[in-house]
């Protein structure tokens, strides 16, 4: 693989840009692999990458039914933050955020990480109290956040209306090191490096069956034939239950549609990310000038990747009250993704009832920010055949053992 650098851009410019290679090789399945990762989203690719980088395992195939990053990884609003309440969540999300800081250099691919700051508004007394608690939890665990007063909120985001009338801004939790990154680039950057390590990236290939011998995994059946493997990991977000069904077990997961939209592009008006959890809306501005807007998920199970109109309306209505300046903007695009929601709104990184089969899912509405950390922890689990420190709180057993990781209060909105 040729490295991307200033000199490569310079030399290519004089060669009509004809010398660029394909970022990754389109793989065809071999008969057998040591490890198969099912799902070519960010989490699947990152898992393969850290298996190669941290553990020197490269006999891996990443199998994707569509195209790389065509799932939620290419459909999200790219918010990155780690201001969670529980220690276990802080562990993995802060690991992830810190990996993002140097990911462009690590992957030799510009993922456009932009630590522009994330502001979580408090618009009720209860929310203010909950956020204060979160900020203390953050401080204890070494996550750099602080509470800011309404006047300071107005200074950070001049277009905001802090006076209500329904939901005046009473304060905010500010994480200056949070921000955004280019979602496609994260998927493509990992795919390129995986390919460079010799990992096969097999697109347009759907897993349609699971091969077991006495409750031990021996391979998968795909639309491109059967492939043997010693270990398999499902990393399929909204389709995790469908895959688990093929393997003969059920998950504590429900799939729902979550939507986002962008406005027409305008001049820069906001230079950080603002989340308004009480009214269910959040906002940032892309480099192209579009306002990137997201809201709540549909209230019923759904695989239609479209979502209901009423949620778009609800989200926009809420944001117009907080940001009156956006009221006349037109919507440019809208889309949906199928997110995998667990009972406690925290992810699953776990072994399964089938020996040799692992699963990474349940990131729901907020797993883009977790891609590097989750891949790191999942690779560690697959290699050692048991979860390490980062992953172990997130096993499936927690639901029957009553060890829930209750983040729903801390992350009341979808992001």
């Amino acid at each position, binding site marked *: 693989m040729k490295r991307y650098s200033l000199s490569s851009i310079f030399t290519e410019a004089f060669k009509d840009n004809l010398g660029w290679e394909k970022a990754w090789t389109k793989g065809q399945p071999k008969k057998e692999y040591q490890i198969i990762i099912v799902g070519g989203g960010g989490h699947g690719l990152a898992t393969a990458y850290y298996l190669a980088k941290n553990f020197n395992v490269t006999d891996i195939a990443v199998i994707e039914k569509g195209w790389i990053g065509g799932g939620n990884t290419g459909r999200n609003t790219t918010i990155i933050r780690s201001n969670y309440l529980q220690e276990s969540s802080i562990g993995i999300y802060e690991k992830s955020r810190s990996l993002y800081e140097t990911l462009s250099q690590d992957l030799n691919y510009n993922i456009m990480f932009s630590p522009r700051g994330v502001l979580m508004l408090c618009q009720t007394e209860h929310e203010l109290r909950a956020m204060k608690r979160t900020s203390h939890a953050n401080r204890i665990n070494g996550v750099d956040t602080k509470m800011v007063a309404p006047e300071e909120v107005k200074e950070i985001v001049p277009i905001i209306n802090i006076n209500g009338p329904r939901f005046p801004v009473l304060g905010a939790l500010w994480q200056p090191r949070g921000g955004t990154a280019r979602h496609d680039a994260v998927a493509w950057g990992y795919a390129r490096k995986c390919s460079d390590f010799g990992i096969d990236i097999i697109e347009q290939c759907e897993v349609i069956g699971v091969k077991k011998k006495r409750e031990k995994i021996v391979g998968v059946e795909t639309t491109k034939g059967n492939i043997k493997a010693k270990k398999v990991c499902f990393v399929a977000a909204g389709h995790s239950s469908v895959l688990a069904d093929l393997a003969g077990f*059920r998950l504590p997961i429900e799939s729902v549609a979550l939507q986002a939209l962008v406005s027409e592009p305008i001049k820069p008006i906001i230079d950080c990310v603002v989340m308004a959890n009480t009214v269910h809306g959040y906002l940032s501005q892309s480099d192209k000038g579009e306002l990137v807007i997201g809201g709540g998920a549909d209230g*019923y199970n759904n695989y*239609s990747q479209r979502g209901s109109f009423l949620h778009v309306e609800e989200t926009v209505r809420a944001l117009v009250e907080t940001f009156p300046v956006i009221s006349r903007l037109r919507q440019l695009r809208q889309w949906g993704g199928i997110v995998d929601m667990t009972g406690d709104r925290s992810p699953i990184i776990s072994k399964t009832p089938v020996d040799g089969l692992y699963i990474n899912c349940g990131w729901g509405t907020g797993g883009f920010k977790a891609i590097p950390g989750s891949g790191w922890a999942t690779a560690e689990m697959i290699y050692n055949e048991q979860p390490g420190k980062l992953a172990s709180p997130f096993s499936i057993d927690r639901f029957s053992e009553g060890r829930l990781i209750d983040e729903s209060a801390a992350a009341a909105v979808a992001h």
Partner: protein
Amino acid sequence: MLNIYCPICQRDCDETELSCGGQAHLIRRDHASSDKNFYEYLYERKNDKGIIFERWRHVYGCGKWFHTARCTLTNQVFGSYSAKEVQPPKSILATIRRSRVDFKGWVK
């Protein structure tokens, strides 16, 4: 927008009048049950891509619960029935079969 029939009010309702209560026909467990049984009741879900049977509540109407059959991929609704039923009635299963020849029936 979803349009679902409320068998109590006997009329079609918009999604905005309703609230979804998730998978229907779960077996309710008493306090003496095992951890596994409680897990199944509280968290484990079929989450099928295709036909599902689910609970809905007519919150901005009669306030009552009922059951509905719906396809999670196309959002086609096949009809509603009483919340007292312990499994989907034959008439609903027949309606589903008329438009989905490969429908395998209800699985617990």
